[in-house]
C-alpha cells in the first residue's frame, strides 16, 4: 500500500463525517405557502446577515466531493453540500437530512429512504432520486477511484442502489451491517444535471477542479462558491435555496458569507485568531490554549475545552511476519516483541499521566483502550486502568526470562541487551514528545531506546511497505463513534492493522477472537449485544497489548463572543458542523 493510500485510509476512517445537521430536535414540516419539505432546526434563533472568517491550513485541492481527501478540502466541501442521513454531532446519533425518513428491513440488509420533496440545489434545480442514483454510481465507479468507495463496500461487495420513485430509493447490502445508516453521513449528493456529461465523457476527475467558475458548481449545502483567490482565500455565499429554517421560519443559513483564509501553520492560526483576523479556531494545542486564555476577556473571545475527542495515540511494536524481508536484526528483536509479558511490562512502565501533563498540558485523557472517554456510547467503564508501576514491569520481565546487568542494562534470555528504536513523525511534535517520555520511562527498566523522528512519508513507507522498524508511536483519529469504523484497524486483515499487516489468517488465537467478535458485532443489530461484543474486544486488546495506548487529546476550540450558536463538537468537523446556524450577534 502506498503512503498516499494509507493517508487516504486514515482520513477515510477519520473523515467523511461531514454533513449538514440541525441541533437537538429536528422536526419535519411543510413550509408555509410552498411545497418544499423544510427541516426546522432546533437551534436558538439568531439574526440573518454578516460574515465570519475561518483559517484553513491550505488551499483546497479540488471542489469535487467525490475526490476530496484532505481536511481543508473536506471542510470547504462540507459547507457546500449535504447528505441523506447524518450524525448529530451533539448526540452522536443519526438523524434525518435529505432523506426525511428511512426504514431498515428485519434482516438488516435493505434500507429504504424517503427523500425530502421540493428541495433545490444552490443553482435552483430540483433535487430528486435521480441525483441520488447518479451520486452513488459515481462513488462506486472503480474508474473514479473515490475514497468514498471503500465505505460502500459491505462484506466485500458494493452496496446496490435503485430508484423506487422520484422521492424514494432503496439500498441493498450484501450482508447485514449494524448502523449502516451512519455510512450516509458525509456522502454529499451531487447534481446530476451538472456532472452527468463530464461523467459520461470520462472527464469526471477534472470536473469541479479548483479553477472551476462559481456558476459551474452547485450543491445542497448551506453555502455556495462565490470567489476563490489561490493562496489567499475562498469566499462562500449564502445558498438561497437551502432546505432548513429556524423555529421562527427564518431561512437558514443566517450568515451571508463565510470566508476561509489559508494560514499554513498552527502557530500562525493562533496568532491570527488572537489578533482578531479570524472569528473561530480549532485544531490547536493545550499550550496555545493557555496563551489564548490570558487575553480572552480583553479581546472578546471564548475558549472551549470539549474533553477528549476520538483520537487515540499509541505505541506499537513490529509484529509483522518478516520471513520474506531481509531484516535479521529486527526479526531477532521480535522474540521480545511477540512476548505478551514484554509488551505488558512496557505498558506498565509508561507514565500516561506524565504524558498528559507534559505533552498535552493536562488537556488530554490517559488511555487504556482505543475507545476514548469522549465516545459516550461505546466506552467500556469496567476496563482496568492500572497505575504506572516499574516494579510490576520488572516482575513481568523477570518471569519472561529477562535479567539485568550490573550497570542496570536489561538483558534477554540470550544475554543480549534490550535496545530498540521508536519511530515518530517529525512533523508531529506531540507524538515525538510522547516517544521521548516513553524513552525515559523505559530507561528505568534498563531498556536502551532511541527516538527516531522521520519525515511522515518516510515513516509510513517503513510502517506499511518495508517493515523496517522496531516500534513506532502513531495516532488514529477515528471518524465515527461506531465500532464498525474501527474494523480496518482491529480485524487481522484490515488495511490499518498496523502492528501486523497482511495477515493471511489470524496469527494468534487472540487475534482470531478479535476477528470473530468484530465481525459478529457488525452483523448484530441490537445495541446492547453489540456493546457487549465490543467491550470484549477491548478486554482482549487490553490483555494482549498489541498496542500500548497513551493518551487522547482534548478537542479545543475558540470563537469570538460575537459568533452566536457556536457549539463545537468532538466529532469532525468540530466547529463547522452547524455552520448554517452560526450567526453574528
Amino acid at each position, binding site marked *: 500500500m502506498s503512503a498516499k493510500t494509507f493517508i487516504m485510509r486514515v482520513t477515510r476512517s477519520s473523515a467523511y463525517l461531514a454533513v449538514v445537521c440541525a441541533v437537538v430536535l429536528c422536526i419535519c414540516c411543510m413550509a408555509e405557502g410552498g411545497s418544499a419539505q423544510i427541516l426546522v432546526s432546533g437551534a436558538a434563533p439568531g439574526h440573518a446577515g454578516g460574515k465570519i472568517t475561518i483559517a484553513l491550513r491550505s488551499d483546497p485541492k479540488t471542489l469535487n466531493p467525490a475526490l476530496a481527501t484532505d481536511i481543508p478540502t473536506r471542510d470547504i466541501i462540507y459547507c457546500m453540500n449535504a447528505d441523506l442521513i447524518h450524525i448529530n454531532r451533539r448526540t452522536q446519533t443519526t438523524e434525518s437530512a435529505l432523506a426525511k425518513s428511512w426504514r431498515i428491513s428485519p434482516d438488516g440488509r435493505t434500507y429504504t429512504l424517503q427523500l425530502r420533496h421540493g428541495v433545490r440545489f444552490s443553482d435552483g434545480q430540483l433535487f430528486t432520486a435521480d441525483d441520488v442514483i447518479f451520486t452513488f454510481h459515481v462513488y462506486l465507479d472503480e474508474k473514479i477511484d473515490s475514497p468514498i468507495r471503500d465505505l460502500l463496500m459491505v462484506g466485500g461487495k458494493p452496496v446496490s442502489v435503485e430508484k423506487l420513485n422520484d422521492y424514494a430509493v432503496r439500498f441493498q447490502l450484501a450482508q447485514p451491517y449494524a448502523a449502516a445508516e451512519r455510512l450516509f453521513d458525509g456522502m454529499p449528493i451531487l447534481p446530476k444535471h451538472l456532472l452527468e456529461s463530464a461523467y459520461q465523457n470520462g472527464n469526471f476527475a477534472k470536473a469541479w477542479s479548483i479553477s472551476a467558475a462559481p456558476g459551474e458548481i452547485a450543491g445542497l449545502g448551506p453555502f455556495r462558491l462565490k470567489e476563490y483567490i489561490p493562496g489567499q482565500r475562498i469566499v462562500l455565499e449564502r445558498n438561497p435555496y437551502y432546505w432548513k429554517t429556524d423555529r421562527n421560519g427564518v431561512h437558514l443559513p443566517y450568515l451571508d458569507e463565510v470566508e476561509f483564509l489559508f494560514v499554513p501553520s498552527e*502557530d500562525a492560526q*493562533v*496568532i491570527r485568531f488572537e489578533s482578531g483576523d479570524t472569528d473561530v479556531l480549532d485544531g490547536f*494545542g493545550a*499550550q*496555545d490554549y*493557555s*496563551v489564548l486564555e490570558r487575553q480572552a476577556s480583553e479581546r472578546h473571545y471564548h475558549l472551549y475545552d470539549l474533553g477528549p475527542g476520538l483520537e487515540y495515540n499509541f505505541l506499537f511494536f513490529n509484529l509483522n511476519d518478516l520471513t520474506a524481508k531481509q531484516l535479521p*536484526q529486527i526479526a531477532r528483536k521480535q522474540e521480545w516483541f511477540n512476548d505478551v509479558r514484554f509488551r505488558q511490562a512496557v505498558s506498565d512502565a509508561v*507514565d500516561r499521566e*506524565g504524558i498528559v*501533563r*507534559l505533552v498535552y*498540558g*493536562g488537556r488530554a485523557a490517559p488511555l487504556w483502550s482505543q475507545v476514548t472517554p469522549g465516545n459516550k456510547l461505546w466506552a467500556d467503564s469496567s476496563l482496568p486502568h492500572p497505575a504506572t508501576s516499574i516494579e510490576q514491569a520488572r516482575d513481568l520481565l523477570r518471569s519472561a526470562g529477562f535479567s539485568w546487568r550490573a550497570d542496570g542494562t536489561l538483558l534477554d534470555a540470550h544475554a543480549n541487551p534490550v*535496545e530498540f*528504536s521508536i*519511530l515518530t513523525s*517529525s*512533523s508531529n*511534535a506531540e507524538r*515525538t*514528545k510522547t*516517544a*521521548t*517520555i516513553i*524513552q*525515559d520511562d523505559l530507561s528505568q527498566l534498563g531498556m536502551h531506546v*532511541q*527516538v*527516531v*523522528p*522521520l*519525515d511522515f512519508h*518516510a515513516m509510513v513507507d517503513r510502517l506499511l511497505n518495508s517493515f*523496517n*522498524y*522496531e516500534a513506532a508511536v502513531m495516532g488514529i483519529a477515528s471518524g465515527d463513534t461506531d465500532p464498525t469504523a474501527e474494523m480496518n484497524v482491529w480485524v487481522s486483515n484490515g488495511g490499518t492493522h498496523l502492528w501486523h499487516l497482511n495477515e493471511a489468517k489470524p496469527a494468534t488465537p487472540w487475534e482470531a477472537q478479535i476477528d470473530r467478535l468484530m465481525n459478529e458485532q457488525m452483523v448484530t443489530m441490537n445495541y446492547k449485544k453489540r456493546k457487549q461484543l465490543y467491550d470484549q474486544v477491548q478486554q482482549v486488546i487490553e490483555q494482549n497489548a498489541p498496542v500500548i495506548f497513551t493518551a487522547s487529546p482534548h478537542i479545543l476550540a475558540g470563537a469570538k463572543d460575537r459568533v452566536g450558536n457556536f457549539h463545537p463538537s468532538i466529532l469532525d468537523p468540530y466547529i463547522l458542523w452547524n455552520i448554517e446556524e452560526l450567526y453574528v450577534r
Partner: protein
Amino acid sequence: MSRRYKLWCALALLGASHALVLFAGFFAPYSYSTQNRDMPYAPPMRIHFIDAQGSLHARPFVYALKEDSALSGTYVTDHSREYPVHLFVHGSSYKVLGLFDSRIHLFGVEQPARLFLLGTDEYGRDQFTRFLYGGQVSLAAGLIAAAISLLLGGIIGTLAGFYGGWIDEVLMRAGELFFALPWLYLLFAVRAALPLHIAQWQVFLLLLAVCGIIGWTRPARLIRGVVLSAKERNFVIAARTFGASDFYLMRRHVLPQTYGIILTQAALLVPQFILAEVTLTFLGLGVGAPMASWGGLIASLQHYYVLASYWWMFAPALLLIPIFAAYYVIADELQEHLKSVPL
C-alpha cells in the same frame, strides 16, 4: 578599543566558553536527560543572599519552587525554607572528557529543592545544563564540518589553481554543481535511507560530514585564486627552473601563502556550521532526544506559546550571540593582519 585588545577579549571568551562546554559535566548541576515531570517550564530561579525576613546570609541560597495550585503550569516560590548553594557536590554521574567517571559537580542544592539557573524546558530538564551539554554537540559540529570542508576545499583549490587547464575546468565546474545541489533534500534522503539501529549521534555526524563535503566549494574557489597568483611569483618560477617537483613547490612555496585565507575561512565557517546544526535540528535532522544541542534549544522557539509564555527559553539564543561575535572578531582581525603582511 584597540584591535589587539579586541582580539584577546574574543580569544578569552572563546577559550572560556569552550572550556565550560568541554567540562559540561562538572559545571552543570544535573544530567542533561533528567526529567522533572512535576516542573515543566519552570522559570529561572534567583540566587538570594537576603532571606524573606531581611537577614543577610554569607552563603547564597535558593527557595524551592512549587506549582501554583490556583493556576496549573505556573509556579510560586516557597519561602518556608532556604536551600544553601553548595560547591563541589555529589550528583549524577558523568564522564570527564569521555574518559573517566565522576560525580562531582561544581555547585548544587539539597533535594528536594533544585537549582535551575536558566529555567526548565517542557520535560522539566535544566536548561543551563542542557546549554552546556548542547555546546558539545554544536561546537563539535562546527569544528568537524569546517575541518572537512577546508581540507577538501584546500586540496581541490590547490590542485585546480596549480595545474590549471582541464583539471581546473573540471574541478571548478564540479564545484558549481555542488553549489546548485538542493542539499536539504539530500540530507532528508540520506536520513531516510539510513538503518534505524545506528545511534542518533552517528547519524548526526554523518549528516555533518555530508554538510562538510557539500561545503567545500567556497573555500576551494578562494584558495584557487590565491594559488593562481602564487604560482606565477618569481621565486616559485625560479624554484621550478631549479627542478623542484610539483609536490615540493606546492608544499614549500604555494601552500604557505594560503594559510592566511584558510584561517580566516575557518573562523568564518565554524559559526556557519554551528548555524547549520541549528537548521538541521530545526528540521528534525539533529541529534536525537534526549541529547541536547544548541539547535535543539533554539528550535523550541518556533512555537508561538513558547515565545509568548516562557521568556527564559530565549536565553540559549542570547548566549550564542557573544560566541558568534567572538568568532567573527577573530576572522576580522585575521583578515586585517593578512592585508598588512605582504605576500
